[in-house]
Protein backbone atom coordinates (compact mmCIF):
# COMPACT_ATOMS: atom_id res chain seq x y z
CA UNK A 1 0.00 0.00 0.00
CA UNK A 2 1.25 3.49 -0.86
CA UNK A 3 1.26 6.30 1.67
CA UNK A 4 1.07 9.93 0.61
CA UNK A 5 1.82 12.75 3.03
CA UNK A 6 0.50 16.03 1.73
CA UNK A 7 1.53 19.41 3.16
CA UNK A 8 1.50 18.21 6.75
CA UNK A 9 2.25 20.79 9.44
CA UNK A 10 2.10 20.32 13.15
CA UNK A 11 2.51 22.54 16.16
CA UNK A 12 2.53 21.90 19.88
CA UNK A 13 1.08 25.13 21.22
CA UNK A 14 3.49 27.81 20.09
CA UNK A 15 6.15 25.34 19.03
CA UNK A 16 6.19 24.53 15.33
CA UNK A 17 7.25 20.91 14.98
CA UNK A 18 6.62 20.23 11.28
CA UNK A 19 6.12 22.56 8.37
CA UNK A 20 4.52 21.59 5.06
CA UNK A 21 6.00 18.12 4.84
CA UNK A 22 5.10 16.25 1.66
CA UNK A 23 6.41 12.86 0.69
CA UNK A 24 5.25 9.60 -0.80
CA UNK A 25 6.12 6.09 0.30
CA UNK A 26 5.75 3.40 -2.33
CA UNK A 27 4.40 -0.05 -1.64
CA UNK A 28 7.12 -2.48 -0.66
CA UNK A 29 9.86 0.04 0.03
CA UNK A 30 11.56 1.01 3.26
CA UNK A 31 11.89 4.72 3.83
CA UNK A 32 14.15 5.99 6.59
CA UNK A 33 13.41 9.31 8.27
CA UNK A 34 16.47 11.00 9.71
CA UNK A 35 17.24 14.44 11.05
CA UNK A 36 18.67 16.27 14.06
CA UNK A 37 17.05 15.51 17.40
CA UNK A 38 13.80 17.36 17.96
CA UNK A 39 13.13 17.78 14.23
CA UNK A 40 9.74 16.11 14.47
CA UNK A 41 10.59 12.67 13.10
CA UNK A 42 8.51 10.85 15.67
CA UNK A 43 5.74 13.41 15.37
CA UNK A 44 5.61 12.79 11.65
CA UNK A 45 5.52 9.04 12.21
CA UNK A 46 2.64 9.44 14.68
CA UNK A 47 0.73 11.53 12.15
CA UNK A 48 1.35 9.05 9.34
CA UNK A 49 -0.25 6.19 11.28
CA UNK A 50 -3.16 8.16 12.70
CA UNK A 51 -1.93 8.36 16.30
CA UNK A 52 -1.55 12.15 16.12
CA UNK A 53 -3.80 14.64 14.44
CA UNK A 54 -1.83 17.08 12.25
CA UNK A 55 -2.52 20.80 12.65
CA UNK A 56 -2.74 21.04 8.86
CA UNK A 57 -2.43 18.81 5.83
CA UNK A 58 -3.51 15.23 5.25
CA UNK A 59 -2.22 11.69 4.98
CA UNK A 60 -3.65 9.43 2.28
CA UNK A 61 -3.22 5.84 1.26
CA UNK A 62 -3.81 4.08 -2.02
CA UNK A 63 -3.68 0.52 -3.18
CA UNK A 64 -5.06 -2.74 -1.81
CA UNK A 65 -4.49 -4.11 1.69
CA UNK A 66 -2.33 -7.23 1.89
CA UNK A 67 -4.19 -10.49 2.37
CA UNK A 68 -5.15 -11.26 5.96
CA UNK A 69 -4.31 -7.75 7.14
CA UNK A 70 -5.96 -6.98 10.48
CA UNK A 71 -4.30 -3.71 11.42
CA UNK A 72 -3.12 -1.71 8.39
CA UNK A 73 -1.01 0.85 10.31
CA UNK A 74 1.18 -0.90 12.83
CA UNK A 75 3.93 0.45 15.04
CA UNK A 76 7.11 -0.91 16.56
CA UNK A 77 8.12 1.24 19.52
CA UNK A 78 11.47 2.39 20.82
CA UNK A 79 10.59 1.31 24.37
CA UNK A 80 8.96 -1.93 23.13
CA UNK A 81 5.64 -1.09 24.89
CA UNK A 82 5.12 -4.67 26.08
CA UNK A 83 2.60 -5.48 28.79
CA UNK A 84 4.76 -6.74 31.65
CA UNK A 85 1.97 -8.90 33.08
CA UNK A 86 1.53 -10.85 29.86
CA UNK A 87 3.84 -13.57 28.61
CA UNK A 88 5.54 -13.28 25.23
CA UNK A 89 2.69 -15.25 23.70
CA UNK A 90 0.10 -13.12 25.48
CA UNK A 91 1.71 -9.92 24.27
CA UNK A 92 1.64 -11.09 20.68
CA UNK A 93 -1.91 -12.37 20.91
CA UNK A 94 -3.08 -9.03 22.38
CA UNK A 95 -3.02 -7.61 18.87
CA UNK A 96 -5.44 -10.29 17.65
CA UNK A 97 -7.87 -10.74 20.54
CA UNK A 98 -10.39 -8.09 19.53
CA UNK A 99 -10.67 -9.27 15.92
CA UNK A 100 -12.99 -12.19 16.56
CA UNK A 101 -10.72 -14.84 15.05
CA UNK A 102 -11.28 -18.44 16.03
CA UNK A 103 -9.03 -19.76 18.79
CA UNK A 104 -7.35 -22.06 16.30
CA UNK A 105 -6.50 -19.37 13.77
CA UNK A 106 -5.27 -17.06 16.52
CA UNK A 107 -2.96 -19.69 17.98
CA UNK A 108 -1.69 -20.48 14.49
CA UNK A 109 -0.91 -16.86 13.69
CA UNK A 110 0.80 -16.31 17.05
CA UNK A 111 2.85 -19.48 16.64
CA UNK A 112 4.05 -18.52 13.17
CA UNK A 113 4.96 -14.97 14.26
CA UNK A 114 6.90 -16.35 17.24
CA UNK A 115 8.68 -18.81 14.97
CA UNK A 116 9.59 -16.08 12.48
CA UNK A 117 11.16 -13.99 15.27
CA UNK A 118 12.93 -16.88 16.96
CA UNK A 119 10.80 -16.67 20.09
CA UNK A 120 9.34 -20.16 20.25
CA UNK A 121 11.19 -21.26 23.36
CA UNK A 122 10.36 -17.96 25.12
CA UNK A 123 6.61 -18.16 24.49
CA UNK A 124 5.77 -18.46 28.18
CA UNK A 125 8.39 -16.08 29.55
CA UNK A 126 7.49 -12.68 30.98
CA UNK A 127 9.12 -9.57 29.45
CA UNK A 128 11.25 -8.91 32.54
CA UNK A 129 12.96 -12.25 32.00
CA UNK A 130 14.10 -11.26 28.50
CA UNK A 131 17.05 -9.23 27.24
CA UNK A 132 16.39 -5.96 25.44
CA UNK A 133 16.93 -7.58 22.07
CA UNK A 134 14.45 -10.34 22.82
CA UNK A 135 11.92 -7.81 24.07
CA UNK A 136 12.10 -5.92 20.81
CA UNK A 137 11.72 -9.19 18.92
CA UNK A 138 8.43 -9.59 20.81
CA UNK A 139 7.51 -6.10 19.60
CA UNK A 140 8.32 -7.15 16.04
CA UNK A 141 6.36 -10.40 16.36
CA UNK A 142 3.35 -8.47 17.69
CA UNK A 143 3.58 -6.17 14.67
CA UNK A 144 3.86 -8.83 11.99
CA UNK A 145 1.15 -11.03 13.51
CA UNK A 146 -1.48 -8.55 12.25
CA UNK A 147 0.06 -8.55 8.72
CA UNK A 148 0.31 -4.78 8.47
CA UNK A 149 0.08 -2.82 5.25
CA UNK A 150 2.42 -0.20 6.66
CA UNK A 151 4.96 -0.74 9.36
CA UNK A 152 6.06 2.30 11.38
CA UNK A 153 9.29 1.79 13.28
CA UNK A 154 10.01 4.51 15.83
CA UNK A 155 13.73 4.23 16.60
CA UNK A 156 13.25 0.51 17.22
CA UNK A 157 16.88 -0.19 18.01
CA UNK A 158 17.81 2.93 19.97
CA UNK A 159 17.33 1.32 23.37
CA UNK A 160 19.65 -1.56 22.51
CA UNK A 161 23.40 -1.96 22.70
CA UNK A 162 25.49 -1.98 19.53
CA UNK A 163 25.87 -5.75 19.29
CA UNK A 164 22.19 -6.47 19.79
CA UNK A 165 21.38 -3.74 17.28
CA UNK A 166 23.55 -5.49 14.70
CA UNK A 167 21.72 -8.79 15.26
CA UNK A 168 18.28 -7.21 15.10
CA UNK A 169 19.10 -5.38 11.87
CA UNK A 170 19.83 -8.75 10.28
CA UNK A 171 16.51 -10.06 11.61
CA UNK A 172 14.62 -7.08 10.22
CA UNK A 173 16.24 -7.51 6.82
CA UNK A 174 15.31 -11.19 6.79
CA UNK A 175 11.70 -10.40 7.71
CA UNK A 176 11.44 -7.66 5.09
CA UNK A 177 12.91 -9.93 2.45
CA UNK A 178 10.11 -12.36 3.20
CA UNK A 179 7.11 -10.15 3.80
CA UNK A 180 7.95 -7.07 1.68
CA UNK A 181 6.04 -4.88 4.10
CA UNK A 182 6.07 -1.17 3.31
CA UNK A 183 8.02 0.38 6.16
CA UNK A 184 8.88 3.79 7.53
CA UNK A 185 11.88 3.72 9.78
CA UNK A 186 12.67 6.64 12.08
CA UNK A 187 16.21 6.68 13.37
CA UNK A 188 18.97 9.04 14.38
CA UNK A 189 21.53 6.41 13.53
CA UNK A 190 22.85 7.03 10.01
CA UNK A 191 24.43 3.60 9.80
CA UNK A 192 21.04 1.97 10.40
CA UNK A 193 19.47 4.17 7.76
CA UNK A 194 22.12 3.36 5.16
CA UNK A 195 21.93 -0.33 5.91
CA UNK A 196 18.16 -0.81 6.02
CA UNK A 197 16.47 1.79 3.83
CA UNK A 198 15.72 2.00 0.12
CA UNK A 199 15.38 5.76 0.39
CA UNK A 200 16.38 8.14 3.13
CA UNK A 201 14.38 11.28 3.84
CA UNK A 202 16.42 13.96 5.61
CA UNK A 203 14.42 16.39 7.73
CA UNK A 204 15.68 19.83 8.71
CA UNK A 205 15.83 21.21 12.21
CA UNK A 206 12.66 22.39 13.93
CA UNK A 207 10.26 23.12 12.34
CA UNK A 208 10.93 19.95 10.36
CA UNK A 209 10.87 20.24 6.59
CA UNK A 210 11.94 17.74 3.97
CA UNK A 211 15.49 18.74 3.17
CA UNK A 212 16.43 16.03 0.78
CA UNK A 213 15.44 12.51 -0.18
CA UNK A 214 18.41 10.28 -0.95
CA UNK A 215 18.23 6.96 -2.68
CA UNK A 216 20.51 4.14 -1.52
CA UNK A 217 21.62 2.62 -4.79
CA UNK A 218 23.31 -0.53 -3.51
CA UNK A 219 20.70 -3.36 -3.35
CA UNK A 220 19.82 -4.19 0.23
CA UNK A 221 20.95 -7.78 0.14
CA UNK A 222 24.42 -6.76 -1.12
CA UNK A 223 25.10 -4.04 1.41
CA UNK A 224 27.02 -6.33 3.74
CA UNK A 225 29.52 -7.08 0.94
CA UNK A 226 32.96 -5.51 1.29
CA UNK A 227 32.98 -4.07 -2.24
CA UNK A 228 30.14 -1.70 -1.35
CA UNK A 229 31.60 -0.62 1.97
CA UNK A 230 33.18 2.48 0.47
CA UNK A 231 30.09 3.66 -1.38
CA UNK A 232 27.97 3.21 1.73
CA UNK A 233 30.48 5.01 3.93
CA UNK A 234 30.51 7.89 1.45
CA UNK A 235 26.73 8.04 1.53
CA UNK A 236 26.77 8.06 5.31
CA UNK A 237 29.28 10.91 5.18
CA UNK A 238 27.05 12.85 2.82
CA UNK A 239 24.06 12.41 5.11
CA UNK A 240 26.13 13.56 8.06
CA UNK A 241 27.17 16.68 6.14
CA UNK A 242 23.47 17.39 5.56
CA UNK A 243 22.51 17.34 9.22
CA UNK A 244 25.78 18.07 11.04
CA UNK A 245 25.45 21.82 11.55
CA UNK A 246 21.81 21.61 12.56
CA UNK A 247 22.50 18.72 14.90
CA UNK A 248 25.10 20.86 16.64
CA UNK A 249 22.58 23.68 17.07
CA UNK A 250 19.88 21.28 18.24
CA UNK A 251 22.29 19.86 20.78
CA UNK A 252 22.78 23.28 22.37
CA UNK A 253 19.08 24.06 22.53
CA UNK A 254 17.26 24.20 25.85
CA UNK A 255 14.38 21.80 26.29
CA UNK A 256 11.22 23.78 26.68
CA UNK A 257 8.92 20.84 27.14
Amino acid sequence: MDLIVREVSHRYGELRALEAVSLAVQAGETLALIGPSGCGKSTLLGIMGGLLEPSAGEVLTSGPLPEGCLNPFTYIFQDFALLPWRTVEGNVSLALEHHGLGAGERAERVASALALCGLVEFAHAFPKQLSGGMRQRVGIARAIVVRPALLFLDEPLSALDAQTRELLMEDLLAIWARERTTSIYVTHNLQEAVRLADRICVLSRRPGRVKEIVEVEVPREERANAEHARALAELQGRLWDLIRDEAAVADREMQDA
Partner: protein
Amino acid sequence: MPETRPVAFRGGGFNPAGRRGASWIAFAAIIAAWQLSSSSGLLPALFMPSPLSVVEALARRVETGALTRHLAASLQRIALGWAVGTLGGLAIGTAMGIFAVARSIGLPVTSALFPIPKIALLPLLILWFGIGEPSKVATIALGVLFPTIISTYTAIDGVPRNLIRMGQSFGLPAAMIVWKILLPGALPGILSGFRISSSIALILVVAAEMIGAEHGIGAFILAAGNLMQTDQLVAGVVLLSLLGLAVSFGLSRLERWLLRWR
Protein backbone atom coordinates in the same frame (compact mmCIF):
# COMPACT_ATOMS: atom_id res chain seq x y z
CA MET B 1 58.39 -1.92 43.92
CA PRO B 2 56.67 1.12 45.47
CA GLU B 3 54.73 0.72 48.71
CA THR B 4 51.14 -0.57 48.25
CA ARG B 5 48.08 0.28 50.30
CA PRO B 6 44.76 -1.57 50.22
CA VAL B 7 41.68 0.29 48.93
CA ALA B 8 39.29 0.45 51.86
CA PHE B 9 35.76 -0.91 51.32
CA ARG B 10 33.15 1.79 51.89
CA GLY B 11 30.10 0.49 50.06
CA GLY B 12 28.46 -1.34 52.99
CA GLY B 13 25.17 -0.67 54.82
CA PHE B 14 21.92 0.93 53.64
CA ASN B 15 20.76 -2.42 52.42
CA PRO B 16 18.10 -3.69 54.80
CA ALA B 17 17.29 -7.29 54.00
CA GLY B 18 14.63 -9.30 55.83
CA ARG B 19 16.13 -11.45 58.55
CA ARG B 20 13.98 -14.52 58.99
CA GLY B 21 13.27 -15.32 62.61
CA ALA B 22 14.26 -11.88 63.90
CA SER B 23 10.61 -10.86 64.09
CA TRP B 24 9.66 -14.00 66.02
CA ILE B 25 12.48 -13.47 68.49
CA ALA B 26 11.41 -9.86 69.02
CA PHE B 27 7.78 -10.88 69.61
CA ALA B 28 8.83 -13.61 72.04
CA ALA B 29 11.13 -11.25 73.92
CA ILE B 30 8.44 -8.59 74.33
CA ILE B 31 5.85 -11.11 75.56
CA ALA B 32 8.37 -12.76 77.89
CA ALA B 33 9.34 -9.38 79.40
CA TRP B 34 5.66 -8.52 79.80
CA GLN B 35 4.91 -11.85 81.53
CA LEU B 36 7.96 -11.49 83.76
CA SER B 37 6.95 -8.02 84.94
CA SER B 38 3.43 -9.27 85.68
CA SER B 39 4.52 -12.36 87.63
CA SER B 40 7.05 -10.38 89.62
CA GLY B 41 4.30 -7.95 90.64
CA LEU B 42 5.80 -4.99 88.80
CA LEU B 43 2.61 -4.64 86.69
CA PRO B 44 -0.62 -4.67 88.73
CA ALA B 45 -3.09 -7.16 87.16
CA LEU B 46 -5.89 -4.58 87.09
CA PHE B 47 -3.95 -2.07 85.02
CA MET B 48 -2.23 -4.54 82.73
CA PRO B 49 -3.15 -8.22 82.80
CA SER B 50 -0.40 -10.74 82.16
CA PRO B 51 -0.17 -12.52 78.80
CA LEU B 52 -1.15 -15.77 80.46
CA SER B 53 -4.36 -14.35 81.91
CA VAL B 54 -5.18 -12.81 78.53
CA VAL B 55 -4.78 -16.22 76.89
CA GLU B 56 -6.95 -17.72 79.64
CA ALA B 57 -9.63 -15.08 79.08
CA LEU B 58 -9.55 -15.77 75.35
CA ALA B 59 -9.77 -19.52 75.89
CA ARG B 60 -12.80 -19.12 78.22
CA ARG B 61 -14.61 -17.10 75.58
CA VAL B 62 -13.79 -19.63 72.92
CA GLU B 63 -15.28 -22.38 75.09
CA THR B 64 -18.55 -20.56 75.68
CA GLY B 65 -18.80 -19.76 71.99
CA ALA B 66 -19.06 -16.05 72.74
CA LEU B 67 -15.87 -15.31 70.85
CA THR B 68 -17.09 -16.92 67.65
CA ARG B 69 -20.28 -14.87 67.85
CA HIS B 70 -18.41 -11.61 68.32
CA LEU B 71 -15.89 -12.44 65.63
CA ALA B 72 -18.56 -13.51 63.15
CA ALA B 73 -20.56 -10.33 63.72
CA SER B 74 -17.51 -8.13 63.16
CA LEU B 75 -16.25 -10.06 60.15
CA GLN B 76 -19.63 -9.86 58.48
CA ARG B 77 -19.75 -6.09 58.87
CA ILE B 78 -16.19 -5.72 57.65
CA ALA B 79 -16.72 -7.94 54.62
CA LEU B 80 -19.90 -6.17 53.56
CA GLY B 81 -18.67 -2.64 54.26
CA TRP B 82 -15.28 -3.21 52.68
CA ALA B 83 -16.79 -4.80 49.57
CA VAL B 84 -19.27 -1.96 49.05
CA GLY B 85 -16.65 0.73 49.65
CA THR B 86 -14.07 -1.01 47.46
CA LEU B 87 -16.42 -1.53 44.52
CA GLY B 88 -17.52 2.10 44.68
CA GLY B 89 -13.95 3.31 45.05
CA LEU B 90 -12.73 1.21 42.11
CA ALA B 91 -15.51 2.50 39.88
CA ILE B 92 -15.09 6.16 40.83
CA GLY B 93 -11.29 5.98 40.85
CA THR B 94 -11.20 4.36 37.41
CA ALA B 95 -13.57 6.98 36.02
CA MET B 96 -11.34 9.70 37.48
CA GLY B 97 -8.32 8.07 35.87
CA ILE B 98 -9.96 8.12 32.44
CA PHE B 99 -12.41 10.98 32.08
CA ALA B 100 -11.46 14.63 32.45
CA VAL B 101 -14.90 15.57 33.80
CA ALA B 102 -14.86 12.84 36.43
CA ARG B 103 -11.40 13.94 37.46
CA SER B 104 -12.20 17.62 37.78
CA ILE B 105 -15.29 16.84 39.87
CA GLY B 106 -13.83 13.91 41.78
CA LEU B 107 -10.56 15.40 42.96
CA PRO B 108 -11.92 18.38 44.93
CA VAL B 109 -14.87 16.38 46.27
CA THR B 110 -12.56 13.61 47.44
CA SER B 111 -10.19 16.10 49.03
CA ALA B 112 -13.13 17.67 50.88
CA LEU B 113 -14.64 14.42 52.14
CA PHE B 114 -11.60 12.21 52.74
CA PRO B 115 -10.33 14.00 55.89
CA ILE B 116 -13.70 13.76 57.69
CA PRO B 117 -13.37 11.08 60.38
CA LYS B 118 -16.12 8.73 59.27
CA ILE B 119 -16.90 7.82 62.86
CA ALA B 120 -18.10 11.39 63.33
CA LEU B 121 -20.77 10.64 60.74
CA LEU B 122 -22.05 7.58 62.61
CA PRO B 123 -24.81 9.45 64.50
CA LEU B 124 -25.99 10.87 61.21
CA LEU B 125 -25.86 7.46 59.56
CA ILE B 126 -27.84 6.02 62.48
CA LEU B 127 -30.47 8.67 61.85
CA TRP B 128 -30.61 7.68 58.20
CA PHE B 129 -30.34 3.92 58.40
CA GLY B 130 -31.43 3.11 61.95
CA ILE B 131 -29.32 1.74 64.76
CA GLY B 132 -28.93 -1.76 63.24
CA GLU B 133 -26.47 -3.19 60.75
CA PRO B 134 -26.82 -0.78 57.80
CA SER B 135 -25.42 2.22 59.68
CA LYS B 136 -22.35 0.23 60.77
CA VAL B 137 -21.77 -1.17 57.29
CA ALA B 138 -22.21 2.31 55.80
CA THR B 139 -19.59 3.74 58.19
CA ILE B 140 -17.07 1.14 57.06
CA ALA B 141 -18.00 1.54 53.39
CA LEU B 142 -17.55 5.31 53.58
CA GLY B 143 -14.23 4.92 55.36
CA VAL B 144 -13.01 2.50 52.70
CA LEU B 145 -14.40 4.45 49.75
CA PHE B 146 -12.11 7.48 49.73
CA PRO B 147 -8.70 5.83 50.15
CA THR B 148 -9.73 3.35 47.47
CA ILE B 149 -10.71 6.18 45.12
CA ILE B 150 -7.35 7.84 45.65
CA SER B 151 -5.24 4.71 45.26
CA THR B 152 -7.17 3.56 42.18
CA TYR B 153 -7.05 6.96 40.54
CA THR B 154 -3.34 7.36 41.25
CA ALA B 155 -2.58 3.84 40.03
CA ILE B 156 -4.52 4.30 36.78
CA ASP B 157 -2.86 7.65 36.26
CA GLY B 158 0.52 5.98 36.70
CA VAL B 159 0.05 3.39 33.95
CA PRO B 160 2.59 4.36 31.28
CA ARG B 161 0.95 6.36 28.49
CA ASN B 162 2.96 4.52 25.89
CA LEU B 163 1.08 1.32 26.70
CA ILE B 164 -2.22 3.06 25.99
CA ARG B 165 -0.83 4.42 22.73
CA MET B 166 0.30 0.93 21.88
CA GLY B 167 -3.24 -0.34 22.47
CA GLN B 168 -4.63 2.40 20.25
CA SER B 169 -2.08 1.68 17.55
CA PHE B 170 -3.35 -1.90 17.38
CA GLY B 171 -6.92 -0.69 17.19
CA LEU B 172 -8.03 -1.99 20.59
CA PRO B 173 -11.51 -0.69 21.47
CA ALA B 174 -11.56 1.72 24.44
CA ALA B 175 -13.20 -0.84 26.74
CA MET B 176 -10.43 -3.34 25.95
CA ILE B 177 -7.78 -0.72 26.69
CA VAL B 178 -9.34 -0.21 30.12
CA TRP B 179 -9.77 -3.91 30.79
CA LYS B 180 -6.52 -5.28 29.35
CA ILE B 181 -4.09 -2.40 29.84
CA LEU B 182 -5.26 0.14 32.44
CA LEU B 183 -6.68 -2.14 35.13
CA PRO B 184 -3.91 -4.76 35.13
CA GLY B 185 -1.34 -1.97 35.03
CA ALA B 186 -3.01 -0.31 38.00
CA LEU B 187 -3.29 -3.55 39.98
CA PRO B 188 -0.11 -3.10 42.06
CA GLY B 189 -1.29 0.30 43.26
CA ILE B 190 -4.83 -0.93 43.83
CA LEU B 191 -3.58 -3.86 45.91
CA SER B 192 -1.42 -1.67 48.10
CA GLY B 193 -4.50 0.51 48.55
CA PHE B 194 -6.28 -2.61 49.85
CA ARG B 195 -3.78 -2.75 52.69
CA ILE B 196 -4.75 0.69 53.84
CA SER B 197 -8.48 0.25 53.31
CA SER B 198 -8.58 -3.09 55.16
CA SER B 199 -6.90 -1.51 58.19
CA ILE B 200 -9.39 1.33 58.07
CA ALA B 201 -12.24 -1.18 57.95
CA LEU B 202 -10.85 -2.86 61.04
CA ILE B 203 -10.56 0.43 62.92
CA LEU B 204 -14.04 1.55 61.96
CA VAL B 205 -15.80 -1.70 62.78
CA VAL B 206 -14.60 -1.49 66.38
CA ALA B 207 -15.64 2.13 66.71
CA ALA B 208 -19.04 1.51 65.08
CA GLU B 209 -19.71 -1.44 67.36
CA MET B 210 -19.30 0.72 70.41
CA ILE B 211 -22.72 2.24 69.66
CA GLY B 212 -25.80 0.06 69.75
CA ALA B 213 -24.22 -3.32 69.07
CA GLU B 214 -24.85 -6.48 71.01
CA HIS B 215 -22.17 -8.54 69.32
CA GLY B 216 -18.88 -7.70 67.70
CA ILE B 217 -15.32 -7.22 68.93
CA GLY B 218 -15.95 -3.54 69.61
CA ALA B 219 -18.98 -4.35 71.78
CA PHE B 220 -16.96 -7.04 73.54
CA ILE B 221 -14.11 -4.64 74.35
CA LEU B 222 -16.51 -1.90 75.48
CA ALA B 223 -18.40 -4.30 77.78
CA ALA B 224 -15.16 -5.59 79.29
CA GLY B 225 -13.95 -2.04 79.87
CA ASN B 226 -17.20 -1.05 81.60
CA LEU B 227 -16.80 -3.95 84.01
CA MET B 228 -13.06 -3.32 84.53
CA GLN B 229 -12.35 -6.80 83.14
CA THR B 230 -8.99 -5.79 81.79
CA ASP B 231 -7.96 -9.34 80.89
CA GLN B 232 -10.91 -9.57 78.50
CA LEU B 233 -10.32 -6.05 77.25
CA VAL B 234 -6.74 -6.89 76.31
CA ALA B 235 -7.91 -10.21 74.90
CA GLY B 236 -10.17 -8.28 72.53
CA VAL B 237 -7.32 -6.01 71.52
CA VAL B 238 -5.06 -9.02 70.87
CA LEU B 239 -7.81 -10.49 68.74
CA LEU B 240 -7.89 -7.31 66.65
CA SER B 241 -4.15 -7.45 66.20
CA LEU B 242 -4.36 -11.09 65.10
CA LEU B 243 -7.12 -10.19 62.68
CA GLY B 244 -4.98 -7.43 61.21
CA LEU B 245 -2.07 -9.84 60.85
CA ALA B 246 -4.28 -12.42 59.13
CA VAL B 247 -5.60 -9.83 56.65
CA SER B 248 -2.09 -8.61 55.90
CA PHE B 249 -0.89 -12.17 55.39
CA GLY B 250 -3.78 -12.92 53.05
CA LEU B 251 -3.09 -9.77 51.04
CA SER B 252 0.59 -10.66 50.73
CA ARG B 253 -0.33 -14.05 49.32
CA LEU B 254 -2.80 -12.44 46.93
CA GLU B 255 -0.14 -9.95 45.79
CA ARG B 256 2.43 -12.64 45.25
CA TRP B 257 -0.01 -14.60 43.12
CA LEU B 258 -1.50 -11.73 41.11
CA LEU B 259 1.78 -9.84 40.64
CA ARG B 260 4.02 -12.80 39.87
CA TRP B 261 5.02 -11.07 36.63
CA ARG B 262 6.97 -8.44 38.56
